[in-house]
Protein backbone atom coordinates (compact mmCIF):
# COMPACT_ATOMS: atom_id res chain seq x y z
CA UNK A 1 0.00 0.00 0.00
CA UNK A 2 0.92 3.62 -0.10
CA UNK A 3 3.63 4.64 2.30
CA UNK A 4 4.95 7.91 3.61
CA UNK A 5 8.48 7.57 4.87
CA UNK A 6 10.09 10.17 7.06
CA UNK A 7 13.77 10.56 7.89
CA UNK A 8 15.58 10.79 10.14
CA UNK A 9 13.74 9.05 12.95
CA UNK A 10 15.66 11.01 15.60
CA UNK A 11 17.80 14.11 15.51
CA UNK A 12 19.76 15.66 18.35
CA UNK A 13 21.12 19.15 17.74
CA UNK A 14 22.82 21.86 19.72
CA UNK A 15 20.74 24.97 20.19
CA UNK A 16 21.42 27.33 17.29
CA UNK A 17 22.08 24.55 14.77
CA UNK A 18 19.79 23.96 11.82
CA UNK A 19 17.51 20.93 11.46
CA UNK A 20 15.81 19.29 8.49
CA UNK A 21 13.34 16.43 8.23
CA UNK A 22 12.38 14.80 4.95
CA UNK A 23 9.17 13.14 3.89
CA UNK A 24 8.82 10.82 0.88
CA UNK A 25 5.68 9.29 -0.57
CA UNK A 26 5.48 6.26 -2.82
CA UNK A 27 2.71 7.97 -4.81
CA UNK A 28 1.84 11.49 -5.93
CA UNK A 29 0.05 13.55 -3.31
CA UNK A 30 -2.67 16.16 -3.71
CA UNK A 31 -1.31 18.02 -0.72
CA UNK A 32 0.90 17.53 2.31
CA UNK A 33 0.41 18.69 5.86
CA UNK A 34 2.90 19.09 8.68
CA UNK A 35 2.15 18.63 12.38
CA UNK A 36 4.18 19.15 15.55
CA UNK A 37 3.73 17.13 18.71
CA UNK A 38 5.36 18.42 21.87
CA UNK A 39 6.49 15.81 24.42
CA UNK A 40 3.40 14.55 26.26
CA UNK A 41 1.11 16.47 23.93
CA UNK A 42 -0.96 15.84 20.84
CA UNK A 43 -0.17 16.65 17.19
CA UNK A 44 -0.95 20.21 16.21
CA UNK A 45 -1.34 21.38 12.62
CA UNK A 46 1.46 23.61 11.33
CA UNK A 47 0.88 24.08 7.62
CA UNK A 48 -0.47 22.64 4.39
CA UNK A 49 1.28 22.68 1.00
CA UNK A 50 -0.76 22.16 -2.15
CA UNK A 51 1.14 23.35 -5.21
CA UNK A 52 4.04 21.64 -6.92
CA UNK A 53 7.32 23.25 -5.83
CA UNK A 54 5.59 25.33 -3.17
CA UNK A 55 7.70 26.92 -0.43
CA UNK A 56 6.17 28.42 2.70
CA UNK A 57 7.81 30.03 5.69
CA UNK A 58 6.73 30.42 9.29
CA UNK A 59 9.38 32.44 11.10
CA UNK A 60 12.35 30.05 11.38
CA UNK A 61 10.49 27.16 9.72
CA UNK A 62 10.64 26.61 5.96
CA UNK A 63 8.40 24.03 4.29
CA UNK A 64 8.87 22.76 0.74
CA UNK A 65 6.75 20.56 -1.51
CA UNK A 66 8.61 18.78 -4.28
CA UNK A 67 8.05 19.40 -7.96
CA UNK A 68 6.65 15.90 -8.42
CA UNK A 69 4.47 16.27 -5.30
CA UNK A 70 5.96 13.10 -3.83
CA UNK A 71 8.28 14.60 -1.26
CA UNK A 72 8.47 17.43 1.22
CA UNK A 73 10.83 18.87 3.76
CA UNK A 74 10.73 20.97 6.89
CA UNK A 75 13.80 23.03 7.72
CA UNK A 76 14.29 24.85 11.02
CA UNK A 77 16.93 27.56 11.10
CA UNK A 78 18.81 28.20 14.35
CA UNK A 79 16.90 25.75 16.53
CA UNK A 80 15.69 26.73 19.98
CA UNK A 81 14.73 24.54 22.93
CA UNK A 82 11.09 25.37 22.19
CA UNK A 83 11.42 23.46 18.91
CA UNK A 84 11.70 20.15 20.79
CA UNK A 85 9.08 17.62 19.75
CA UNK A 86 8.12 15.19 17.03
CA UNK A 87 7.38 16.52 13.56
CA UNK A 88 5.00 14.55 11.37
CA UNK A 89 4.23 14.94 7.72
CA UNK A 90 0.87 13.69 6.45
CA UNK A 91 0.31 12.99 2.78
CA UNK A 92 -3.13 13.35 1.26
CA UNK A 93 -3.76 11.37 -1.92
CA UNK A 94 -7.49 12.33 -1.98
CA UNK A 95 -8.32 8.83 -0.83
CA UNK A 96 -6.87 9.11 2.63
CA UNK A 97 -4.38 10.98 4.77
CA UNK A 98 -1.29 8.98 5.65
CA UNK A 99 1.01 10.08 8.41
CA UNK A 100 4.74 9.65 8.25
CA UNK A 101 6.51 7.94 11.12
CA UNK A 102 7.71 11.26 12.49
CA UNK A 103 11.09 12.80 13.33
CA UNK A 104 11.81 13.37 16.99
CA UNK A 105 13.89 16.49 17.53
CA UNK A 106 15.90 17.02 20.69
CA UNK A 107 17.63 20.37 21.20
CA UNK A 108 20.44 20.68 23.72
CA UNK A 109 21.00 24.13 25.23
Amino acid at each position, binding site marked *: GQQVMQIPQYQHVQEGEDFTTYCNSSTTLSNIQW*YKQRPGGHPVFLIQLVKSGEVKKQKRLTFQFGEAKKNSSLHITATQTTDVGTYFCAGDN*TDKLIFGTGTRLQVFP
Partner: protein
Amino acid sequence: DVKVTQSSRYLVKRTGEKVFLECVQDMDHENMFWYRQDPGLGLRLIYFSYDVKMKEKGDIPEGYSVSREKKERFSLILESASTNQTSMYLCASSLAEGPWGGNTIYFGEGSWLTVV
Protein backbone atom coordinates in the same frame (compact mmCIF):
# COMPACT_ATOMS: atom_id res chain seq x y z
CA ASP B 1 -11.04 27.20 18.55
CA VAL B 2 -11.83 23.61 17.74
CA LYS B 3 -12.02 21.41 20.76
CA VAL B 4 -11.70 17.65 20.60
CA THR B 5 -12.20 16.12 24.00
CA GLN B 6 -11.28 12.59 24.97
CA SER B 7 -13.01 11.29 28.05
CA SER B 8 -10.07 9.57 29.72
CA ARG B 9 -6.44 10.63 29.77
CA TYR B 10 -5.07 7.53 31.47
CA LEU B 11 -6.64 4.10 31.80
CA VAL B 12 -5.44 0.76 33.11
CA LYS B 13 -7.50 -2.27 32.10
CA ARG B 14 -7.17 -6.02 32.47
CA THR B 15 -6.76 -8.44 29.58
CA GLY B 16 -10.16 -9.49 28.27
CA GLU B 17 -12.01 -6.41 29.52
CA LYS B 18 -14.22 -4.40 27.21
CA VAL B 19 -12.89 -0.87 26.90
CA PHE B 20 -14.69 2.25 25.69
CA LEU B 21 -12.81 5.36 24.64
CA GLU B 22 -15.08 8.35 24.10
CA CYS B 23 -14.44 11.40 21.97
CA VAL B 24 -16.49 14.56 21.48
CA GLN B 25 -15.85 17.48 19.13
CA ASP B 26 -17.60 20.82 19.29
CA MET B 27 -17.12 22.21 15.78
CA ASP B 28 -19.76 20.31 13.84
CA HIS B 29 -17.08 18.42 11.89
CA GLU B 30 -18.21 15.70 9.55
CA ASN B 31 -15.06 13.57 9.78
CA MET B 32 -13.86 11.88 12.92
CA PHE B 33 -10.91 9.54 13.34
CA TRP B 34 -9.27 7.20 15.80
CA TYR B 35 -5.49 6.72 15.62
CA ARG B 36 -3.07 4.86 17.80
CA GLN B 37 0.45 6.09 18.30
CA ASP B 38 3.36 3.79 19.11
CA PRO B 39 7.09 4.56 19.24
CA GLY B 40 8.72 4.16 15.84
CA LEU B 41 5.40 3.50 14.12
CA GLY B 42 3.96 6.99 14.03
CA LEU B 43 0.22 7.49 13.80
CA ARG B 44 -1.80 4.59 12.47
CA LEU B 45 -5.44 4.96 11.52
CA ILE B 46 -7.79 2.49 13.20
CA TYR B 47 -11.20 3.66 11.99
CA PHE B 48 -12.76 6.80 10.66
CA SER B 49 -16.25 8.11 10.09
CA TYR B 50 -17.45 10.74 7.65
CA ASP B 51 -21.05 10.85 8.79
CA VAL B 52 -23.36 9.72 11.55
CA LYS B 53 -23.67 5.93 11.62
CA MET B 54 -21.03 5.66 8.88
CA LYS B 55 -17.68 4.05 9.55
CA GLU B 56 -14.73 2.93 7.50
CA LYS B 57 -11.83 0.70 8.44
CA GLY B 58 -8.44 2.28 8.59
CA ASP B 59 -5.11 0.50 8.42
CA ILE B 60 -5.33 -1.49 11.67
CA PRO B 61 -8.99 -2.15 12.56
CA GLU B 62 -8.51 -5.65 13.96
CA GLY B 63 -9.58 -5.93 17.59
CA TYR B 64 -11.44 -2.63 17.49
CA SER B 65 -14.91 -1.38 16.66
CA VAL B 66 -16.42 2.11 16.61
CA SER B 67 -19.75 3.80 17.09
CA ARG B 68 -21.01 7.12 15.80
CA GLU B 69 -24.59 7.64 16.89
CA LYS B 70 -24.31 11.43 16.98
CA LYS B 71 -22.29 13.77 14.81
CA GLU B 72 -20.22 15.14 17.65
CA ARG B 73 -19.36 11.83 19.30
CA PHE B 74 -17.13 9.00 18.09
CA SER B 75 -16.42 6.04 20.35
CA LEU B 76 -13.67 3.46 20.05
CA ILE B 77 -14.39 0.04 21.52
CA LEU B 78 -11.93 -2.69 22.38
CA GLU B 79 -14.14 -5.76 22.60
CA SER B 80 -11.60 -7.81 24.54
CA ALA B 81 -8.51 -5.85 25.48
CA SER B 82 -5.13 -7.45 24.94
CA THR B 83 -1.66 -6.39 26.05
CA ASN B 84 -0.66 -5.51 22.47
CA GLN B 85 -3.33 -2.83 22.54
CA THR B 86 -1.38 -0.89 25.15
CA SER B 87 -0.84 2.41 23.39
CA MET B 88 -1.76 6.04 23.15
CA TYR B 89 -5.05 6.57 21.34
CA LEU B 90 -5.76 9.83 19.59
CA CYS B 91 -9.16 11.00 18.45
CA ALA B 92 -9.36 13.65 15.73
CA SER B 93 -11.85 15.51 13.61
CA SER B 94 -11.97 17.61 10.46
CA LEU B 95 -14.33 19.33 8.09
CA ALA B 96 -14.95 17.54 4.86
CA GLU B 97 -16.20 17.97 1.36
CA GLY B 98 -16.54 14.26 0.87
CA PRO B 99 -14.44 11.80 2.88
CA TRP B 100 -11.18 13.68 2.36
CA GLY B 101 -11.23 17.39 1.68
CA GLY B 102 -7.59 18.13 2.43
CA ASN B 103 -8.72 19.84 5.59
CA THR B 104 -6.78 20.27 8.79
CA ILE B 105 -7.10 17.49 11.30
CA TYR B 106 -7.61 18.54 14.92
CA PHE B 107 -6.47 16.10 17.56
CA GLY B 108 -7.64 15.46 21.09
CA GLU B 109 -5.23 15.27 24.00
CA GLY B 110 -4.87 11.52 23.73
CA SER B 111 -5.75 8.58 25.96
CA TRP B 112 -2.98 6.44 27.38
CA LEU B 113 -4.26 2.90 27.70
CA THR B 114 -2.34 0.21 29.54
CA VAL B 115 -3.63 -3.36 29.36
CA VAL B 116 -2.24 -5.65 32.04
